[in-house]
């Protein structure tokens, strides 16, 4: 008995902790999604969410941000990692600099982009000094169409995320033994074949880690959206949850809307994450490893 119980005892605190401070609030919140103001079971909350004029735009905007930003960030980070994958003078310091955008607090990053994107902000000033903007001309970044605002958000997100994804991929690349790649070249492969047949397959577990973490947090984007544009201007899913919990609190309907949105967001995140893990074969690999 003694020895067998050790792992369970070691894991027990986490299980208890999650029971008390994660599962309990989650249950309360899920139940909130299925009850009306007087505490009876209802599906009315979801009907209300689906009928809200901002629901479809929120789904669409979130989907656009997730698809484009995760793709852009992954490809950008992979390209950078492949180009930089070598020891060079100052590489340690370079990696530290790459960690800064990730370590930057959301409120500080918000301050940075808010002051940059106003018409008299530093981005226009920089473009003026570089000669891209004629004197007296300004670009009104935050007054553009929905599409241009989405593009702006994707670029801002990419700035913050690409360096950290690059670090993850670099670490993975450095774990691939040089000999395996050399073997590929010896057998007549060129750079692209070696990349496709050896480097990328060996990097797959790292890629999965990076992409799954990005997917989960990209779907939950909201703070930068609100700091730049305020509520309801460019609705995204989690922004709706915050909007109904924080901005219009106190109404019965706002609690129901927030709970409804919460359940929808969690469902989407779980489905996307599971689908990705399934498609990319992470489940299968994990079984192989443990056997």
């Amino acid at each position, binding site marked *: 008995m003694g020895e067998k119980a050790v792992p369970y005892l070691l*894991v027990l605190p*986490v299980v208890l902790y999650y029971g008390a401070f*994660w599962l309990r*609030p*989650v249950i309360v919140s899920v139940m909130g999604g299925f009850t009306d103001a007087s505490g009876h079971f209802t599906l009315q909350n979801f009907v209300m969410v689906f009928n809200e004029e901002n629901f479809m735009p929120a789904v669409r905007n979130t989907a656009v941000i997730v698809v484009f930003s995760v793709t852009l960030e992954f490809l950008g980070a992979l390209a950078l990692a492949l180009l930089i994958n070598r020891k060079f003078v100052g590489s340690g310091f*370079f990696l530290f600099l790459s960690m800064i955008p990730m370590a930057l607090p959301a409120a500080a*990053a918000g301050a940075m982009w808010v002051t940059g994107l106003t018409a008299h*902000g530093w981005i226009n000033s920089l473009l003026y000094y570089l000669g891209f903007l004629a004197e007296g001309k300004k670009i009104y970044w935050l007054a553009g169409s929905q599409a241009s605002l989405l593009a702006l958000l994707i670029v801002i997100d990419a700035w913050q995320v690409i360096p950290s994804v690059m670090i993850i991929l670099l670490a993975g690349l450095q774990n691939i033994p040089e000999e395996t790649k050399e073997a590929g070249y010896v057998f007549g492969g060129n750079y692209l074949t070696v990349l496709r047949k050896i480097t990328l397959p060996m990097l797959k577990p790292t890629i999965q880690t990076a992409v799954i973490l990005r997917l989960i947090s990209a779907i939950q984007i909201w703070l930068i959206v609100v700091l730049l544009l305020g509520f309801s201007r460019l609705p995204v899913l989690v922004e709706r949850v915050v909007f109904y919990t924080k901005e219009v609190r106190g109404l019965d309907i706002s609690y129901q809307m927030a709970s409804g949105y*919460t359940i929808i967001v969690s469902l989407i995140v779980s489905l996307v994450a599971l689908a990705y893990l399934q498609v990319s074969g992470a489940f299968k690999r994990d079984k192989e490893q443990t056997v």
Partner: protein
Amino acid sequence: MTKKKHINIYKAAKRTTFYIFVTGVIIAMLLPLYFIVSLSFLSTREAYRYPLPLLPALNTKFELAHGERGYLLSVYDRVAGEYQSVLDTADLEKMSVYMKSQLGTIPITIEEIEQQIAKLETQEVVHFTRRRNLLYNYQVFFRVAGTGQAIPALLRSLEIAAMTILISLSIGGMAGYAFARYMFKGRDALKFSVLFVRMFPGVSIALPMVIILANMGFYDEPIGLSLVYSVGSIALTVWITASIFMGIPVSLEEAAQVFGATKLQTFFRITLPLALPGLAACAMYAFLGAWNETVAAIILTVFKPTFSVIVYQTVLGAVGQVNLAAAGGMAMALPAIIFTFFLRRYINQMWGGMTV
């Protein structure tokens, strides 16, 4: 001979291109940061000039002349490249305050202004230069933001971060060790459930937590927030520590036990010291998570806000004070960046061993 030279030139060109590329990447990463740092040192007047000055000024040049209502104060405008009149008043106190608050010069007494004015008897205009107080925006931010709550909030945030590190390292580290060393039923399910925890939006947990924490007496208390933040950081800690402990050879532990050490002794004498770098990285993630978090802090605090809440409010209400928002943002970013700097090696090591 010529061939060798050829190769050297080729190599040098390749290396130069590489360094130019890396420099380009660094510039792209740091340019936005440069501007917010620079903005946080600009005077209020210059922060609203367009285009923004690229560098904060160390000195401000003044010109004083007789005006219609008293004395006409002009200030050298770096963007326009000329003196521009800013104030026409006989009230020297007002002039002194204006120079300090709008232009960020080091405080100038009324007597000093009088001395300059005295020179006007012999000459048309007087020119003089004052050094600037570069930290003025930061001083104002800490005095004004959140109606004087900024410094207590800063200390509170540090306290919350420290407690979060303690909770998540002790609880998460234990589970991580179990994952690395033992095969047990439900191991896989648990490992993935640690990931699932991150899939439920943090906002949605914060709201029910209001009642749960209130029942425990922890609502609007630092410990309450640490309990909430630990949920996220425990998940990551389990994941990271599992990979760290896997990287420490079991043979080392077995060797210690051969020499008569108990399991507990082995853990504290052999395994833990070897795992310290990785644990430091976990501590850093826990710190950053707690230090940076804003949403739960907004919902779960009333009279005891965290530093991130104060900065968030300053940024949202920054319409009149971009340089203050910049100073607040930087005051918040600095501890995060310093922490990252000290633990940079460990983060790098850690990512190497971490996979889904």
